[in-house]
């Protein structure tokens, strides 16, 4: 039965996460924006909290559907996106720097064997898909993995890897058979310190500067055979590739929630200034009869609500074990774009306060922009949605 009231447990979780974000992240947000690439040591307190990518429980300890205590199961995906929103309200760059909460962890959590979980579950895992010649078209990667006895030998270059410096391991996409196209793409776990695996350099960015984005070069890099995630077999169909892409169904709502958190931070600050200036925000007056700042504010708040509801729906579907591929893309498409627009607009409404580094609004505008780019750009999300609702293949709708 439809019920979109926020459950009590989620409301109290949101408020305690918000306290944490306000107490720990906000105060150091500017510091690490300025000190690009420096590890925020304050975040050590979160190690082990596993905000993204909780390691999959071994089959034997899998939770009972009712949580084992007769109470309804509280959805992990929904709690995760709600937590992420609060943390990004604190600071998105810092959220992305939380130890052991990399996107690679999400991929490992989704597909690792029990034995792999044992070896890698407790480590900080980055995700390396993108290459200089392969961005949105992730199926065109050219990094190769060659089998040599009990080892894989990797060669190629990976760019824009989040947590490149701080992570312990990297999930690397590589092809075992270039002639097989997408079916040949597999993911491999490469540990830092492996000979032939080198962190080339770190990027200087528009925003999320607290997050260390870097380039890896793989040069005859040898890893154990068992470091492959999933099966080594190259099938004729693209089921395997679809499998690796499925991780995105979980991570896209997370990125959308990051956008929601940043946009809310901007709106909250704008609201504070509106209140101080004597404006009334009472959700009553016709939009024709309020000032232009108030009108913009109301509309942005409505969009923010829409973003959150699309995110929560996608997460709720994952929690209830429904296929949420389109809904995940819908959340990402909406929140990525709208978050960008909201943070821009708030700076405009704030005037000089929105341009000065005395305040965080300008930073939120820089931070938010990435949410419409990584984990698939807004355009790619629109493609996914359009192909799905129009029931057209990638061939018919390019």
């Amino acid at each position, binding site marked *: 039965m439809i019920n979109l009231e926020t459950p009590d447990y989620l409301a109290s979780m949101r408020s305690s996460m918000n306290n944490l974000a306000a107490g720990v992240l906000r105060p150091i947000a500017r510091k690490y924006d300025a000190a690009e690439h420096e590890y925020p040591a304050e975040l050590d307190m979160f190690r082990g909290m596993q905000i993204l990518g909780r390691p999959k429980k071994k089959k034997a300890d899998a939770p009972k559907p009712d949580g084992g205590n007769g109470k309804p199961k509280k959805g992990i995906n929904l709690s995760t996106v709600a937590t992420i929103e609060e943390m990004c309200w604190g600071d998105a760059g810092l959220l992305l720097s939380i130890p052991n909460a990399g996107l690679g962890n999400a991929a490992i959590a989704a597909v690792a064997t029990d034995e792999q979980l044992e070896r890698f579950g407790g480590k900080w895992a980055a995700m390396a898909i993108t290459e200089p010649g392969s961005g949105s078209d992730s199926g065109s990667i050219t990094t190769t993995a060659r089998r040599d006895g009990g080892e894989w030998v990797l060669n190629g270059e990976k760019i824009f890897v989040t947590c490149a410096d701080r992570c312990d391991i990297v999930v690397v996409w590589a092809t075992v058979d270039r002639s097989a196209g997408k079916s040949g793409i597999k993911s491999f776990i490469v540990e830092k310190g492996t000979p032939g695996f080198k962190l080339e350099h770190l990027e200087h960015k528009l925003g999320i500067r607290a997050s260390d984005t870097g380039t890896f070069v793989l040069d005859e890099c040898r890893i154990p055979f068992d470091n492959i995630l999933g099966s080594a077999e190259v099938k004729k169909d693209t089921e395997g590739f679809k499998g690796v892409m499925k991780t995105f169904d979980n991570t896209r709502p997370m990125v959308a929630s990051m956008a929601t958190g940043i946009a809310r931070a901007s709106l909250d600050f704008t609201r504070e200034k509106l209140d101080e200036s004597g404006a009334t925000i009472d959700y009553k007056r016709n939009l024709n009869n309020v000032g232009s700042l108030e009108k913009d504010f109301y509309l942005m708040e409505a969009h923010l609500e829409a973003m959150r509801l699309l995110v929560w729906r996608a997460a709720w579907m994952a929690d209830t074990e429904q296929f949420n591929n389109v809904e995940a893309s819908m959340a990402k498409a909406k929140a990525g774009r709208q978050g960008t627009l909201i943070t821009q607009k708030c700076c405009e409404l704030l005037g000089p306060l929105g341009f000065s580094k005395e305040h965080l609004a300008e930073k939120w505008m820089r931070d938010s922009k990435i949410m419409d780019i990584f984990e698939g750009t807004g355009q790619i999300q629109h493609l996914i949605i*359009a192909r799905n609702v129009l029931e057209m293949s990638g061939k018919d709708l390019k």
Partner: protein
Amino acid sequence: MICFACSEEQTLMKETAAKLVQGAIADAAHQMDETGRIPDDAVRKFRELGTLLAAIPEEYGGYGMGNSPIMNSIILEELAAGDMGFAIAATLPALFLMPVMDCGTDAQKARHLADFAADPDGACGTLAINEPRFRFDPYDLATTAVRKNGSYILNGTKCFVPLAETARRIMIAAALDGTNGLFIVDRNNPGLTVGAREKNLGLNSLATHPITLTDCEIPADDRLGGDAGCDYDRLLQRTWTAIAAIGTGICRASYEYAKNYAKEREQFGEAIASRQSIAFMIAEMAYEVDAMRLMTWKAASALEAGRDAQREAYLARIYAGEMAMKLTDYGVQVLGGHGYIREHPVERYYRNGRGIAILEGMAIA
């Protein structure tokens, strides 16, 4: 617990309403818009479902099954996906009776609810909130009520009053001593004049009328809620949620029509949907319609929980107002010149869509 899926009962009602629209409205909607007439038969079929009787307490002749703003929103979306005017006409008695149920005195409930229960097909009441003026705002009414001994004297002008001509009673929103109240006026009251049917941009299937109140005197007992007055905020919250549901239905219809058209229409040797500029409009329509619905359901959930829904209902409504225009515009654009021709429904959705941000008090959730 939070849930984004319909229950069996909600799905059943949604499907029933959809089937009714499919059978009685879908093919007729264009004609309804051109001739300005809604088939009585279609309205009767909807009333036969007894959704309103179900909500009326047993002591007043209903089934006493409670009122569900969420269910009402689900139904309104389905009906409006067929035709906005039909959605308003079919559910109209609720617009008059729900405020009575919410805030009427015992005597008012006994009279109006029982009247309806005794003759559910008979003429009932309607609601008059809109006023024909620049900067109109339901919180800033120019229509006034003044207490005089045992009466109230009403003065002012209203517009867009649905089915005013055939209504037995009209509930008038008017300012009273700095607050806003609702006043039940008999259709035959000599101080009340119903003007000729209006000609509007959209909503053409539905007869709407202007109303003039000239020193219109009513017994003090006919103020909704008696001396205590009514919960005007809640009335607006419920009507805002309803108009958001209607906006969702219109946009959904526009989206579906445009989507199917884009797959069939070929230019430059392939379906126009193969081009991203068309496909991306379709994608945006898909998720914005969902967002509109979720915003509506969010407000309806707050109402259903009996909580103050001022924020949620306001946001759902202004969002629907924005999106109704944006998405129905996309709908016309996807069809190009063909979208401009009245045989295709997208131009009607576009005209009706303009009403979502403007019209007050046309339906209730």
